[in-house]
């Protein structure tokens, strides 16, 4: 799990082009949206594609993202449970 979380942080930084942020700057429980990393609705759409591309998880409704993308913890847990690749 720890490995998945580190990998996830790296990928998020890469796809969202978070130039000023390093893997070490993101705590597992930090909120990704609003306060915290400060991601927005466009980022949520980017993360939906990341889930599909990297882990074979298809989310058809953007609203589903709300609970899944709360933090690295919630995201990693969802991926571990649902990944197809």
């Amino acid at each position, binding site marked *: 799990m720890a490995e998945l979380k580190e990998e996830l942080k790296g990928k998020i930084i890469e796809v969202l082009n978070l130039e000023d942020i390093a893997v070490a700057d993101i705590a597992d429980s930090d909120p990704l949206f609003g306060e915290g990393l400060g991601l927005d609705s466009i980022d949520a*759409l980017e993360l939906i594609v990341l889930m599909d591309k990297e882990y074979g998880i298809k989310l058809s409704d*953007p609203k589903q993202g709300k609970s899944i993308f709360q933090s690295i913890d919630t995201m990693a847990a969802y991926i571990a449970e649902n990944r197809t690749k």
Partner: protein
Amino acid sequence: MAVAGVAITGIGIISSIGKTIEESQHALLSGTHGISRIKNVETKQKERIWVGEIKYSNTELADLLHLPAGHNYTRTAMLGCYAAKAAVDALGGCDMGAYKTGLISSTSVGGMDYTERYFYDYLENPALYPYITTHDAGDSSHKIADYLGIQGLVTTISTACSSAANAIMMGARLIKSGRLDRVVVGGTDALSKFTINGFKTLMILTDELCQPFDQNRKGLNLGEAAAYLVLESEDVVQREHRKPLAYLTGYGNANDAFHQTASSEDGEGAFLAMRKALTVADLAPSDIDYVNAHGTATPNNDLSEGRALQRIFSANMPLFSSTKAFTGHTLAAAAAIEAVFCVLALQKQIIFPNLNFKTQMEELDFSPQTEVCQASLTNVLSNSFGFGGNCSSLIFSKA
């Protein structure tokens, strides 16, 4: 009474519900939508989406326009030429050089339909080079101007899905200021893989028929279309003994300044645009008899627009409908085809229905008109909103 306004003396349209005014009107009155599976664009999404596609191939369009072999007209340009020519022909034998005549066109995809086809092939195949210079948004306007024989002020506006409303607005201002005597205004957009996939990434395309202003709406259907209006000065109207079809009396553009693609929850930009249009027309909200809403059927747009309508009209919401369920969302052309629908509504004193509506939105106190109905229409308002917070409203008044 509204201010005098600018006379609309010609209209032309091509969309998935018809290639003439008569066909379009017939479809609107009989509730026949133009939404189908896509045929002319090769895309992986074809089984997942419904579109308002014009069922003419590019070859057929070129034939309709009598273009010579070896032409480099993109689909966007051909649709534009077709509708603009129809608008000008409606005047009946018109010498484009007789008055200071201009063209204000609009498009969002421009020549992307050919760019996406030949993007890499261009590097290998010099025979394709003539299409390289059709990529930019101005190309279709040049083609339309040439096709109509317009030499003068020709320009193009691109503000995403409000584009044509802004072209109509600028045209009206050029007439009012006396810079032009006559101006052809409108917009054209062809379906392309680029826009289909773009809207798909935003997850606002539905896999069903779109349901504007419905509680359970799931997103929009894309479409393609072109429509143009001829605006003429009062002087030309008198000299040429024209019978205006309607008048453009109000217009307003404002920016939501909220988000690059989404509309604000309270519809601030839409509210400001409608308020400006009312001010220009010197009308009160109670003078508006019908609203042709932007109503794309995305969860975000219809809520934001609905709230803005509620703010403008309070308890006295006029009859309203979105005609997007007939044509799909035709992007830069949307405001132009809906302007044509508004002119027809005023001429026929008829309101066109909002198809596919079942359940009222829980956030709103009103529902759209779902059946064709006769109504006494003096002033109608049309909304168009685009990415980048671009919000435009036009008011058309009975001639």
